[in-house]
């Protein structure tokens, strides 16, 4: 898990995405504990309020939940949930910017489709 401090994206958003990636990759299995706010804050040298904000996004989306006195745990079905959401976001974050850039470079729709074909062959 890494945070890119030169990225335009706020740190707390990067953190919640990184935690999601770690859940997708299986680094944090369902019903197991994720690092505490303090651990994250100390490890990445970020303000605990920022760390908490990142974790709270996952809480609000039902990805992790709080076990009183123990810490934060990955919810049942969290991985599935993240994958669903990522698919919805795929259009917004990848397709739209792909089309914008293609238009800027005068790449036609047909050419993009050909490139996609090629991309899948790799």
């Amino acid at each position, binding site marked *: 898990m890494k945070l890119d401090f030169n990225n335009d994206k*706020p740190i707390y958003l990067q953190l919640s995405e990184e935690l999601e990636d770690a859940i997708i990759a299986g680094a944090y299995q369902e019903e197991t504990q994720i690092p505490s706010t303090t651990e994250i804050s100390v490890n990445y040298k970020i*303000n*605990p309020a920022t760390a908490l904000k990142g974790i709270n996004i996952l809480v609000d989306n039902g990805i992790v939940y709080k076990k009183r006195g123990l810490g934060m745990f990955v919810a049942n079905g969290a991985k599935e949930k993240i994958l669903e959401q990522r698919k919805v976001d795929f259009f917004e974050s990848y397709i739209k910017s792909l089309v914008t850039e293609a238009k800027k470079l005068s790449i036609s729709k047909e050419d993009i489709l050909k490139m996609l074909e090629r991309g899948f062959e790799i």
Partner: protein
Amino acid sequence: MSQMEIKNITKKFADVTALENISLKLEENKIYGLLGRNGAGKTTLLNLITNRIFPTEGEILVNGENVIENDNALSKIYFMAENNYYPENMTVKKAFNWTKEFYTDFDSEYAAELCEKFSLKLNQKIKTLSTGYTSIFKMILALSCNVPFVLLDEPVLGLDANHRDLFYKELLKNYSEKPKTIIISTHLIEEAADIIEDVIIIKSGKLILNESVESVLSQGYAITGSISAVDGFTAGKNILGADTIGGIKCAYVLGHLDKAGIPDGLEVTKPDLQKLFIHMTNR
């Protein structure tokens, strides 16, 4: 509940106005970054908060009590100053014991633990410490005092990269375990930007910014393109500064950005806190 209020503080040294009508509220358990260029008045403000000097006008209240010659209010604040006020022949250990006389909640065990982590010897004389270790010594005192307000003036002065890393980590650990209000005055903005929650910027004795880092970063943006296009877009906006190379201009703007309203050919990027600081305090 611990709160500090700085009300209309002005400080004059002879005919030089070091601080002019500064008003600030410091909330409980927040980490503040106090930023300003050399000679902006940061240390003067910290000296006033701890009543090492007296304000010309205004007052500073800790939980409603004026700090002036007020032992109760001052015992709630620890100031890690740039100067060393300990007798030079004193050993580190003895300095810890002395500090405990004044700050009764001083945690000697924790202080010894930090000394071990930073490889600072307890029996070393303060005068024999290098610049970096003098900073480490003073910083350990500040972290071990267990008071509601800790003021750190250039805490990483002379520290190598490893020790700075360790310092930020220990600071955050300390803050997480025993929340307190911390003010860090530093020139190393890039390093502190993600640690501080709110940023206070002083420019030539005047308060020019007091906001959360997140809100400053969300408001600040840089817009790049041809000179005429950038000038057209930024007309009437709060421009902090600009860089020009050849026919390309990059203007730094503070304010709300309507992403849909950006003309073609202009590119928006998000500057970091240091970049915004440089443009806010230039000139």
